[in-house]
């Protein structure tokens, strides 16, 4: 047991390496914020494409469904490795500038942007399904009413359906977001020094694993409050949709 404490809870080591691990955690947070925002937006776009009406647009719907199926079915780790390995060659093949194949925008290294790209395309697919549940959960009569008032499909979506749908799915979206944040650690395989990779670097240098525990604690400091927020939102929603409760809080 002493060995476990020494290996995983060496407080001196945690103190010495706090700065390095925390720098990694800031990288994690930036990655989670940027790719999370993009995935939320991309997911909504996918969900809307999937709901397009009419026969002429059927190919768009099918392509969207194929995309969502593909990215929900492939591990994010593989997507990261494939994008990081192939993008430089793809960009070169297409004659695009080097800064597209090996992006180093805003002073961030290229593994960061490969991570942003891989997480966005993958989590966009997950989130599209959440949005879809919300859109399909809005009673049909809403769309019919909007259309009979003379709104186009797009206008009805924008002004009537989506605002109601998004409000319903905020808690499950936040859940996905927590998962996304944890999955940012996978970008470590392409040598981005995020919090887990920072911990593993310290581990490789000191032969002690306490920096990993430190990283776990930093994660918890953010994810636990987020989980509580989800709980509160859900409770609020429950109250709103329960008979006899005040209609709006």
């Amino acid at each position, binding site marked *: 047991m002493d060995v476990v404490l020494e*290996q995983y809870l060496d407080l001196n080591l945690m103190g010495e390496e706090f700065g390095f691990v925390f720098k990694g955690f800031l990288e994690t947070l930036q990655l989670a914020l940027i790719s999370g925002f993009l995935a939320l937006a991309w997911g909504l776009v996918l969900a809307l494409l999937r709901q397009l009406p009419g026969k002429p647009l059927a190919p768009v719907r099918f392509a969207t469904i194929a995309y969502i199926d593909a990215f929900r079915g492939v591990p994010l780790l593989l997507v990261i490795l494939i994008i*990081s*390995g192939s993008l*430089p*060659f793809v960009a070169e093949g297409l004659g695009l500038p*080097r800064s597209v*194949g*090996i992006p180093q925008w805003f002073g961030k*290294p*290229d*593994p960061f942007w490969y991570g942003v790209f891989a997480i966005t395309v993958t989590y966009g697919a997950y989130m599209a399904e959440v949005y879809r549940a919300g859109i399909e959960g809005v009673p049909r009569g809403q769309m019919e009413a909007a259309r009979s008032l003379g709104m186009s499909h797009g206008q009805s979506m924008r002004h009537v359906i989506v605002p109601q749908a998004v409000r319903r799915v905020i808690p499950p979206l936040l859940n996905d977001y927590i998962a996304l944040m944890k999955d940012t650690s996978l970008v470590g*395989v*392409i*040598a981005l020094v995020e919090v887990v990779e920072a911990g*593993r*670097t310290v*581990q*490789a*240098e000191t*032969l*002690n*694993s306490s920096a990993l525990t430190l990283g776990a604690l930093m994660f918890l400091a953010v994810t636990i409050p987020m989980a509580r927020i989800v709980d509160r939102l859900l409770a609020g929603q429950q109250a709103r949709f329960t008979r006899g409760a005040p209609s709006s809080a």
Partner: protein
Amino acid sequence: MRKLDPRAWAVLLGMVLVLAGAGCGGDDESDKQDGASSQGDAALETVREGTLTVGSDIPFPPFEQGRGPDYEGFDIDLIREIANRLELELRVQDTPFDTIFRDLGQGKFDVVASATTITPERERAVDFANPYYLAEQAILAEQGAGIAGVEGLAGKTVGAQKGTTGADYANDETDAKTVRTYGEADDAYNALQAGQVDAVIIDLPAAQQAAADKNGLEVVTSVETGEEYGFALQEEADSLRKAVNEALTEIKQDGTYEEIYREYFDKKPPAEILDATHMPS
């Protein structure tokens, strides 16, 4: 209770079958272990009786490569020869390099044979047997990249494998702008080919192998570091370490070492390695 849907039964059945299959695999494993322990009457204490369990981060050609369980490479052939002479069955376990010494300390293997350089830092956690290879580092870059030597790395992005002496060298001895460390050597080579790093610092034979196998890469220069590879053992395994050292000395003296060395490096081994010894601190 509601009756289960037939499809649900099918899924359940599938899961049971999969679990049962895994269980059988486990039984096989323990049978083998029993078999080994009954025949192994050597007094050597190992993690599994009668077996020399070896940890190695594969692939790292030409030192460790191939597909399990019959891996090959300079380290693997050498440790196989040692295991034979100690009358132990060899079992090689593929494992990540960055935690390899910790795992050895935890008792997951008897020996680490993974192109490991003997360093004082590692010596604090494990013990090394006598050196079996003299190593240098090398700078690997894209052909025509114009990196001439260590000075040419100033301001560049340099790749290395995590936890290696190459990574230490890149951090401590070069003016590289950033050092990126990868879990596997191959990931570092791929990043180099894709232009994500400007150079990779890694053990010379591995760099030469990469230059031969991968398009457009060349060894720019070797870096004399005076490193010695040694098989690492658990700290209190003195009798096993002595036995390994004796077998290694035998192998060096009767020409088997030279045979294996020539197979992988195509030249005569340096005389210094044949009588090199190392005392654990």
